[in-house]
């Protein structure tokens, strides 16, 4: 079993997302440690991209903060090396195709695996294009994570059949960001996945911010992904974000127990 799948074993996984280098890589290191200690089962590390077309304003702004601070892919790799000395929780990179492609797909994936990353999420690489990235990931032992959306319908079976690690279920139309209501029938989406791939964990992301929402979503899925709600706190508290983020992660994790 991959390290990612084990994150879902016998529990509902809480999966926080933060943007590396926001506001500094030093702070990212502290935040990852704090999140791991407070119940994160799997952590998504965003590599900032200049033009993140799947993100709402909160993560767009965080990406800009990180890039302005001089964050680069190489510096993030160095930071992960450091983190791995202290944190063993599974971690995946989330970024955009061009960040990986321009680095060299093989060089990127090989390095990511070497420094202890467990998976890769590219929101702008759908099923039709994944063969450019997925075989290299498989070769180096990284799970290439597939996404399904409320508009996927008949595509879910095709995607789920070949999914690795976990399936990222996008809860809502549009971009990332906090939503008061999630109206998609996520239960039905998860059911369609499990029909063709019973062992693949499903985690729901996009729009989730409160413990109540998390608890609700966990009824249908194996895990809950939260990005903007955390990144917003980092934007607000900056260098002092460690405690508020730790508290928030702990609250969210409790709601999943």
């Amino acid at each position, binding site marked *: 079993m991959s390290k990612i799948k084990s994150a879902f074993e016998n529990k509902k996984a809480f999966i926080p997302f933060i943007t590396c280098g926001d506001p500094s890589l030093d702070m990212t290191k502290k935040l990852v440690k704090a999140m791991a200690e407070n119940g994160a089962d799997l952590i998504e590390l965003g590599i900032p991209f200049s033009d993140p*077309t799947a993100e709402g304003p909160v993560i767009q702004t965080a990406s800009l903060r990180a890039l302005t601070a001089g964050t680069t892919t190489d510096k993030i790799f160095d930071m992960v090396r450091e983190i791995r000395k202290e944190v063993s929780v599974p971690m995946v990179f989330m970024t955009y195709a061009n960040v990986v492609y321009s680095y060299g797909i093989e060089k990127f994936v090989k390095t990511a695996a070497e420094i202890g990353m467990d998976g890769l999420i590219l929101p702008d690489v*759908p099923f*039709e294009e994944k063969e450019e990235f997925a075989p290299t990931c498989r070769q180096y032992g990284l799970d290439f994570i597939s*996404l399904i959306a409320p508009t996927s319908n008949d595509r879910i079976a095709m995607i789920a059949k070949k999914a690795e690690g976990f399936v990222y279920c996008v809860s809502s*139309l*549009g971009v990332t960001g906090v939503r008061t209501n999630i109206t998609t029938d996520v239960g039905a989406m998860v059911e369609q996945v499990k029909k063709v791939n019973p062992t693949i964990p499903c985690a729901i992301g996009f729009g989730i911010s409160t413990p109540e929402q998390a608890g609700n979503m966990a009824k249908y899925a194996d895990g809950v992904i939260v990005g903007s709600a955390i990144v917003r706190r980092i934007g607000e508290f900056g260098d002092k974000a460690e405690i508020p983020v730790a508290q928030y992660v702990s609250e969210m994790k409790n709601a999943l127990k």
Partner: protein
Amino acid sequence: MEERKGRFGVHGGQYIPETLMNAVIELEKAYNHYKDDPEFNRELTELFNDYAGRPSRLYYAGKMTADLGGAKIYLKREDLNHTGSHKINNVLGQALLAKKMGKTRLIAETGAGQHGVATATAAALLGMECVVFMGKEDTERQALNVYRMRLLGSTVIPVTSGTATLKDAVSEAMREWTNRIDDTHYCLGSVMGPHPFPTIVRDFQSVISKEIKEQILEKEGKLPDAVVACVGGGSNAIGAFCHFIEDKDVRLIGCEAAGRGIDTFETAATINTGKLGIFHGMKSYFCQDEYGQIAPVYSISAGLDYPGIGPEHAWLHDTGRAEYVAITDDEAVNAFEYLSRTEGIIPAIESAHAIAEVMKLAPTMDKDQIIVVNISGRGDKDCAAIARYRGENIHE
């Protein structure tokens, strides 16, 4: 020559969020159905001819030819189309297609505002709702076009993210499409983005080269030696090149915006300064840094101020079938003034990039050779900006 679906060599593809996949699949199916549908084509031709004013003229620029003292120069007058540019060709095609698909709302990005105005126009004509995303900086550079769009009943949303120019307008339009798909068609304005857009837009713009071919054969009894057009995303260029791609003796020359020069950071010359990458749904050449961060590009022309180029152009470059040259702001402004004075035709500053290349090329060619240059749009929208460039402080 498309090796995989929606590919031009290695370029193209569908690098978009899963949320949009069924939308582009639905669009491709509808397009494949309607492109050969006689009723659809009859309606589109009627719109082209009776509404947009096609065919556009192929005008022999006698004074310019005499002045430059080389090849004979013909101007393809896309600036005479309704709404003042080639953009209307693609928009009428896509809007009609969207309507057939049952969509009631169009969204679009715009740089100079020409595509936005064309989309707003088609929306008004076909009774559709329309929202146009435009970089905030461009809404200021092209204030008149913002007013035109509003006058036509559209909503214009100034985009403040990123560099607040064309690339950010595309990003924002894509975000809006993922948010609302059921009733909305994204009317992409250039031969870029995910498949099937580069193919659809090329097909609707190919009317330009279809007409050039007929017109030049009628006037000269032979094909031109060179076809020249400006390239941002590349829709007017691909339209002007399309029916000549198989005619290997016809040189195809695309003119990129060099801004302040290709050896500066203030440039938008993608082929000349970019490298292979993946962005806005496609694999192609992009101006970017060593980590794949998209570069903030610059050109005096809002319509060419884009860090990428359509995948078919990238492929025409790879195969050597087309040449891509870089034209600076200075050269373009000179050409803008030159064509105005010499022929009494004020071209769009985008099209002036192509004129600038012709000014260099024509004198090197023989008098029996022929250049066709695509005047993709008219320059009224640029007059205030060019005046300011020359130090005259006039405002619209």
